[in-house]
């Protein structure tokens, strides 16, 4: 009891300092409008505040400064709106009230009366400006592509609210890509020559349903406030707070946060509680192991990679680290529970003797990079024990996740373990960027990055071809074929998929949701809207 009191006190002090006291050091949205015509509405929200676990700095929630991981993007996308949003079954209006497409032409009609957080009206001029601006300065997350890969050919402003965008080549993902880039206010960014360093308060004047009214990187605290000028529906909460907590579950139990992930060992305790609601994230978190083939070209030899798979006791990762909630990853990458899963992919059983034979007497000495989370280190320890049992020598390096990502982007590793969410539902969203040599995003997030120093023409061809297939069933078959190829060629190692549940108190707020493509309730914008 004493401990929880101490933690509560600590949290209150932290939040107070971070949100109110530390204003000088953080980027704050302009306060001038906060209570005025375009500022905070006075009532009519389902709840006053929604509080979530913070504590990690996911960057300034601007399109150029957020951290390129789910939680960083999600915060930015609360502040900046895109044309479309996704719900449980498909695309839904967000800034665009309606849309249509024919051939390569996509026409979007905006809601009338929408404004930016400083009260300036949002029109198709801003949409057009953003397209040109992103073409020149790609933001952190970029659905429009880079350089020659930029998907938009040109655009035509029909009127203040209607714009027709012509793409170079329409495919199955085009609508989703056009619907998901965020719209910048032209009147601010047209004066900005270097968006990558632009961090004055103006950079947070967004087009989204929530304004960023507080950010403190050091403590990982964020405050978002509902924007009264938002026209497409009503926000669920007046404020969203990300507060630093020392133990997520204790904070949830003490009512300091409103949603938390449920530890596997406590399933019995919470599942039977009728007051608790859940969002299931089946196989959503995945861990993979990358080999830097540029540094270790000998592993381009397939039997060695087969040997590594045989050396890994992946079931023990599921049992010991995921505590049984999850599955041994499919060597074809797409998790077992997915609609796109190919049950015929090659399955690699744990067989240390076979591994020893395949790896031979070479006595490889490698370093294994991981993040310093409890799960990351535990998985690394299992991998080390497994690989050393078959004659390799492994040194584990654990660094914070941002440094790990940075080192992987730079190619500064031998073997590396990467964990990320989003595996569960949407293989079309990641298979191409992982396995096509043409689409590897070698400089963004390792989560969707292909193996360095590995190339495969046949795999690239298939990964690219599926994009042009508009028949869903045929496309699914192509994915299955790609999975089989991945399981056979082993460009990377799938270590396991972790399932989890987000839990919340039903009587306080029941609006948490997952989209058809993304299961992280805390990161979906519609979780914060009254629906």
């Amino acid at each position, binding site marked *: 009891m004493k401990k929880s009191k101490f933690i509560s006190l600590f949290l209150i002090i932290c939040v107070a300092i971070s949100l109110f006291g530390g204003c000088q050091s953080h980027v704050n949205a302009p306060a001038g409008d906060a209570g005025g015509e375009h500022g905070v509405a006075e009532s009519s929200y389902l709840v006053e505040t929604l509080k979530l676990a913070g504590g990690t700095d996911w960057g300034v929630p601007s399109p150029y400064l957020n951290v390129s991981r789910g939680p960083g993007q999600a915060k930015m996308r609360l502040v900046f709106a895109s044309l479309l949003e996704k719900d449980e079954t498909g695309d839904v209006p967000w800034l665009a009230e309606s849309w249509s497409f024919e051939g390569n032409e996509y026409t979007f009609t905006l809601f009338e009366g929408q404004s930016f957080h400083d009260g300036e009206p949002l029109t198709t001029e801003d949409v057009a400006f953003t397209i040109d601006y992103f073409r020149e300065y790609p933001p952190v997350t970029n659905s429009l592509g880079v350089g020659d890969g930029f998907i938009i050919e040109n655009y035509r402003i029909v009127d203040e609210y209607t714009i027709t965008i012509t793409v170079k080549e329409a495919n199955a993902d085009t609508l989703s890509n056009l619907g998901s880039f965020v719209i910048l206010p032209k009147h601010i960014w047209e004066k900005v020559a270097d968006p990558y360093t632009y961090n004055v308060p103006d950079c947070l004047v967004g087009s989204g349903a929530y304004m960023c009214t507080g950010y403190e990187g050091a403590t990982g605290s964020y405050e978002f406030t509902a924007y009264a000028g938002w026209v497409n529906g009503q926000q669920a909460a007046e404020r969203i707070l990300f507060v630093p907590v020392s133990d*997520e*579950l204790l904070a949830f139990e003490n009512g300091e946060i409103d949603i938390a992930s449920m530890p596997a060992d406590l399933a019995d305790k919470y599942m039977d509680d009728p007051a608790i609601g859940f969002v299931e994230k089946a196989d959503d978190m995945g861990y993979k192991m990358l080999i830097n083939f540029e540094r270790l070209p000998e592993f381009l030899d397939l039997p060695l990679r087969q040997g590594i798979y045989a050396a890994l006791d992946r079931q023990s990762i599921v049992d010991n680290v995921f505590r049984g909630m999850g599955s041994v990853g499919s060597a074809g990458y797409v998790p077992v529970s997915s609609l796109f899963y190919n049950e015929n992919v090659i399955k690699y059983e744990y067989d240390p003797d076979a591994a020893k034979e395949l790896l031979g007497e070479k006595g490889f000495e490698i370093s294994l990079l991981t993040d310093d989370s*409890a799960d990351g280190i535990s998985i690394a320890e299992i991998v080390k024990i497994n690989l050393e049992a078959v004659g390799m020598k492994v040194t584990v390096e654990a660094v914070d996740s941002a440094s790990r990502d940075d080192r992987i982007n730079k190619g500064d590793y031998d073997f590396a373990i990467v964990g990320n969410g989003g595996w569960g539902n949407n293989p079309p969203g990641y298979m191409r960027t992982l396995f096509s040599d043409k689409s590897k995003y070698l400089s963004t997030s390792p989560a969707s990055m292909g193996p360095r120093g590995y190339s495969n023409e046949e795999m690239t061809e298939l990964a690219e071809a599926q994009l042009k297939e508009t028949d869903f069933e045929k496309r699914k078959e192509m994915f299955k074929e790609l999975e089989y190829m991945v399981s056979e060629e082993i460009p990377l190692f799938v270590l396991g998929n972790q399932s989890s549940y987000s839990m919340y108190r039903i009587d306080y707020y029941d609006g948490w949701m997952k989209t058809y493509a993304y299961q992280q309730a805390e990161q979906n914008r519609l979780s914060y809207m009254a629906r």
Partner: protein
Amino acid sequence: MRRLLIPAALFLLLALLFAYGLLFYPQDSQLPSGDSLEAPSRVHWLGTDNLGIDIFAQVSSGFFHSLSIGLAAAVIAFMLGGALGVAAGYAGGRTDAVVEFLINLFLSVPQLPIMIVIGAFFGQSSLNIICIIAAFSWAPIAKQVRARTMSLRKTRYLILARSYGGGLWYLFRTHMSRDIMPLLLISSLAVTGRAIVQESSLAFLGLSDPLAKSWGLMIARCTGFKGIYFTEFWIWWLLPPVLALVLSVLLLRLFSRALENYWLGKE
């Protein structure tokens, strides 16, 4: 004398217990030997952690890991603090001014934040931890030794010995060591205890070898386990390293206090 013997005997007992854990206990401290989070049993005296690795074996190995880091840091601090303290106290003048400045510098900077920054900068290894802890432990020793040397310098027998041409090393060996050595040893013993706590703190913060079986890391791994306080696992996963840490530091401290009274109180 009894006050001196009791903590020493208890510490020895603790060391013997952990030596058994390290040398003769059948379970390995690095490899899984049971299921995940098994409760204490005859096979696993203190149960297993989430990877199925025996806790008693880990705590035992952690004792020698922490103690060796503590002793190594203490030896460096002993030599550095002793040499600088004697040199400053005996030579006086400019040497004394420089050493005194260094002592004050190291005594006044906040240790933990600096240690974290240095630890993060130089990377995760036991050697770095030893150097960092030693760097922040020599100053209090040097300060005491310097003061003692200064007062000794003015004694008649030392002035006489110097006037006969005795060098510093000769003087130290024959006339000063009897007074200074107990002081040095007691201070260094205190450093060992403190170093064990500091090593655990740095390991807890993730600044040591990430897979070393040290107490700080065991505590960090356990507290990082989701929902640990709502399960019973903390009883055998968290308590043993915490108790081992508290007990060994306490016994070392009691021993050095008793030694202080025994040696210095006699005068």
